[in-house]
């Protein structure tokens, strides 16, 4: 009988403890800096090396490059860049292999949409998704000499 009474005592004590729930829809929920949210894409930095499309486990990145507009510069410029968020699992491998940190994760996670075809994000949308971009990136971009060896 005493176990039950002790249990009742504990639940009563818990009634007085502060509440731990977030009131999410009213106040936005901040995520820590390293949070893997929706990607942000920066076309200038991209060198169309296709590394991200190759590493993606679910092959949801499709990109096409085109010749550099002014003749004397060689190399390619990104033309279209789409991520299919129906199957993207936000595993952060693409930002890891990108040599120029062209694609970076942000802390936004609101991805709910009313129709599936809104989930095909193109270059322009990814570029505008530039709020609270991740500060500390763990990408293949060569660190400044003497930087943290990681």
């Amino acid at each position, binding site marked *: 009988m005493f176990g*039950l009474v002790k*249990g*009742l005592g*504990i*639940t*009563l004590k*818990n*009634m007085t*403890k*502060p*509440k*731990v*729930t977030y*009131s999410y829809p009213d106040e936005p929920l901040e995520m820590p800096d390293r949070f893997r949210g929706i990607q942000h894409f920066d076309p200038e930095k991209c060198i169309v090396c296709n590394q991200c499309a190759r590493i993606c486990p679910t092959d949801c990145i499709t990109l096409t490059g085109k010749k550099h507009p002014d003749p004397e510069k060689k190399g390619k410029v990104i033309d279209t860049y789409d991520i299919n968020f129906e199957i993207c699992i936000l595993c952060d491998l693409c930002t890891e292999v990108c040599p120029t940190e062209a694609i970076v994760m942000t802390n936004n996670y609101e991805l709910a949409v009313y129709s599936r075809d809104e989930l095909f994000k193109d270059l322009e949308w990814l570029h505008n998704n530039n709020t609270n971009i991740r500060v500390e990136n763990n990408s293949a971009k060569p660190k400044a000499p003497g930087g943290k060896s990681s």
Partner: protein
Amino acid sequence: MNLMMVVGPVLLLFIVLGFVTYAILFERKVIGWIQNRIGPNRVGPWGLLQTVADVFKLLIKEDIIPAKADESLFRLAPVIAFVPAFAVLAVIPFTEKIQFADFAVGLLYYMAISSITIIGILVGGWASNNKYALLGGMRSAAQMISYEIPLVMSVVGIIMSVGSLNLHEIVEAQQKVWFIFPQFVGFAVFLIASISELNRTPFDLPEAESELVAGYHVEYTGFRFAFFMLAEYVYVFAMASLTTVLYLGGWNAPFGLTFIPPIVWFILKFSLIVFFLFWVRATMPRIRVDQLMQFAWKVLLPLALANIFITAVFKEIPVIGKFY
């Protein structure tokens, strides 16, 4: 006079419906606080309209009757479950003057009418032609019958002390000493048996979510489901008020503080019991069916009989006899 005969019950019905809506909300809030969360606060200020929204949702929900269900019994079951719950309130003396029917066998009337609900639940479980509902119905029939007896037996102690079944007189007999003190064993048995009558945790076997999905009301949707929930909470109202009347001295003020009106005392004691029911629901795990049966027949019943025996013996002893 006959105007009061009509307006009174309608008024009581509204009070009870009001109680039910805010009891559901209060329960969800209390269990929320116990579990370190806020409880419903989205609909209306501090969530006050939450239950109203739920009832409205149930009203506009599609009312499905399973194809292979036994049509007429399926419709009748919620009615059989709800009507006794409300009919039982006629006999409860809220205060000196507020009582709908003051007849000599009030307590017997309460016990008899309240056991009709078992039939409602059994018919509901059987008619919905669903295995889970059938199991739920069987369990609740076995549980209610086996807990009806200790419930009644535990009250015999009070009847012997007061010498009458009239609830009004029972409350008057508790002017000086509430029956909870001399009849404490009876009170304990009564409380446990009443929790089991209400099908609430730790005895909520008929609608054990984790085992039978939802027990007897698994196939009920829309307003029929609301009727079953209504019946359950009106019974909470009835059982809590009966406990207050029998053991906590109805409208009598403790230690003579009579400047507070009796109805307020009644409400205070009543909500204490209701809070205790919610509090137990948030803490206790569920008992197994066979343990439930053994507990009723091998623990509660002997305790109730022992209580009767002790009351009889104490009545004869001159000094403390007057308390009994």
